[in-house]
């Protein structure tokens, strides 16, 4: 980790301590935009941290930007930081300029296809995109699709497209966007744009899960050391110690898998490494959250305790941009098709 990154992580901590309090999280779940939090993140350049310098980034290594994202998830920051980073990186990859403000991406639900049509007065967009993250609160969406059999990326206004807003288990907004020959503000070719969007999304969610898992471990250790039963802290019971050892393993595995994927994806997402990360972090999310709640007893089941801000995100994020089954199966098909003897050479390349 570079010095610059260390400073950045401290900055994320400082901003979240100030602007990501319990009332902020609760009002965000009620639908309010956490303007002060977002503005603070923007001011220090975090929303552009994943961009190459030439595209307006801060010159941070991509892995370091991912660590900053991970840290924001540790704090359960209720903002579309991942989506804005992701949208920006797609735009930069297509050579397009990145607008100010919060951005989202579409389509994200498997099976949703947005149609790009080239007309006399420019390219237009049609179709529905479900569960677009923060789609109701971001002025622009970066959309991926195909035009004449080639990958294409567009930038579109969400102003007239929002048809409904659902929430994921963590209360993060997931919007239904409908476009009917909506004019694109800009567009450019991007090889395999939909697949790239999906893989980048899976990488960012893996990072976020690693961050949320770190926090659940910290909460669990703290609680186990404080809560006294049978005359001693529950941390002194071997059964509890072993649960926490397993949780620490899941957290370490999720982080290591996400690190590897970020390292391999500096220029563009590495499908193999991302599949490993989303599979492994997704599995860790379920197993880790289960242990954390078991250790916390009824207190962890309350709205009052903060654990749920992280665990509800884990339960949501593991199913977004492809769940474990989806990525494991992709990985399994790649490995099987390559043949058994190619596995080790493939792994040792990572």
């Amino acid at each position: 980790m570079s010095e610059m990154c260390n400073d950045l992580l401290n900055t994320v901590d400082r901003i979240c301590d100030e602007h990501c309090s319990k009332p902020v999280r609760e009002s965000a779940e009620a639908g309010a935009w956490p303007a002060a939090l977002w503005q603070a993140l923007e001011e220090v350049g975090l929303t552009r941290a994943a961009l190459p310098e030439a595209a307006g980034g801060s010159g941070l290594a991509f892995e370091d930007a991912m660590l900053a994202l991970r840290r924001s998830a540790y704090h359960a920051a209720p903002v579309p930081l991942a989506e804005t980073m992701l949208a920006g990186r797609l735009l930069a990859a297509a050579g397009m300029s990145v607008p100010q403000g919060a951005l989202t991406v579409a389509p994200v639900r498997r099976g949703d296809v947005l149609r790009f049509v080239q007309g006399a007065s420019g390219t237009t967009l049609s179709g529905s995109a479900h569960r677009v993250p923060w789609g109701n609160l971001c002025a622009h969406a970066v959309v991926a699709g195909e035009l004449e059999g080639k990958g294409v990326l567009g930038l579109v206004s969400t102003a007239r497209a929002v048809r409904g807003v659902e929430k994921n288990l963590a209360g993060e907004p997931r919007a239904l966007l409908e476009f009917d020959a909506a004019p694109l503000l800009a567009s450019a070719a991007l090889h395999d744009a939909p697949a790239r969007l999906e893989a980048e999304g899976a990488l960012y969610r893996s990072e976020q899960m690693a961050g949320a898992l770190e926090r659940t471990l910290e909460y669990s250790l703290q609680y186990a050391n404080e809560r006294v039963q049978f005359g001693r802290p529950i941390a002194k019971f071997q059964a509890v110690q072993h649960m926490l050892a397993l949780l620490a393993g899941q957290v370490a595995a999720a982080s290591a898998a996400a690190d590897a994927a970020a390292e391999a994806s500096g220029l563009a997402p590495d499908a193999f490494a991302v599949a490993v990360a989303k599979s492994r972090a997704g599995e860790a999310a379920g197993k880790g959250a289960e242990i954390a709640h078991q250790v916390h007893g009824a207190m962890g089941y309350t709205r009052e305790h903060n654990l749920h801000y992280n665990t509800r995100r884990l339960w949501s994020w593991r199913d977004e941009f492809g769940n474990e089954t989806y990525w494991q199966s992709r990985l399994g098909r790649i490995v099987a098709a390559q043949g058994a003897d190619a596995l080790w050479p493939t792994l040792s390349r990572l």
Partner: protein
Amino acid sequence: MHAFRFDPVRMPASAQALRSEVRAFIAAEVANGAFTPSCNSWSSFDADFSRKCGARGYIGMRWPKQYGGHERSALERHVVTEEMLAGGAPVGAHWIADRQSGQQILRYGSERAKHTILPKIASGECYFSIGMSEPDSGSDLAAVRTRANKTEGGWNISGTKVWTSAAHRTNYLIALVRTAPKEDDRHAGMTQFIVDLSHSGVSVRPIYNLYGGHDFNEVVFDGFFAADDMVMGDVGTGWKLVTSELAFERSGPDRFLSTYQLLVESIRAIGADPDARSANEIGRFVAHLATLRRMSTSVAGMLERGAQPMVEAALVKDMGTAFEREIPETFRHLIATEPALGDGASYAELLGMTMLRAPGFTLRGGTREILRGVIARGLGLR
């Protein structure tokens, strides 16, 4: 207390060439019939193969040249060990000596021990066993009762070690022995000795394992004489030494690659076009394996920096041995073949071999429960 960090590692430029070199060596050995790739190959015994490894500089890689070593990095050694294991190569004869006994001697051995023993280990001609467990001392290693009494020029050792793998074939073992009566501090008063198994006063008897194989032994000391220069470190510091030995014992890729050949043959048996369930399971194991590799390489990086990654090693070993045991338990559902006896390379034989050995994976080198205790201590819970 925060989560454990498994920091990324930058491989030295030489690592890639070394990897290709080892891979080519293994392929050539398989091609000329020297061995058939197998599971659990670090518990095999093939002195010819060990001598070839020694000649190629794959043993004692990190040690100083004056002791027959090659002064290479922990990361280069890591590359060689994982290539050997992934290739299912019969590295068992020299494994313990290279992994832990030699390192211990280099750190704590007398000058004579270093000069007489290390070069022979490095050339692949001298093999070691581990003399820790006893009938009444398993997980509770500090309960050892084997005793050494001071005598002219050395020590007389009496007592019994058990589960001593390969002691009927190796040249030496390092024994943890009580040199002072037990006091309040139960970790005090122990010492490690190098024991020459060809000398009188020590006898080795087989203990057959559950499938009838002869791997481990009972080793009985009856007034065995160990010269003063076979004492490791200072008398009474055995607990500190054995702890450092266990860090080497637990830290490597042998703790998640014991059943790699079975994974490979399972994938081959399933074929190029897996059904949904098989594709899912293959992917899951590959995701776990890639992650374990990453964590294990990070541990090698910690060793390289001179750290003692006790807790991180315990974590990788606990997760790695669970992974090893899950492979047969999962793939037997996907491939309708009964496990077979034999030591061939077919899926059925690898499956049978693995199932019969799997119970040991989560015992040897410290049980799963003991490892979780180590991790819990690292988390500040004990």
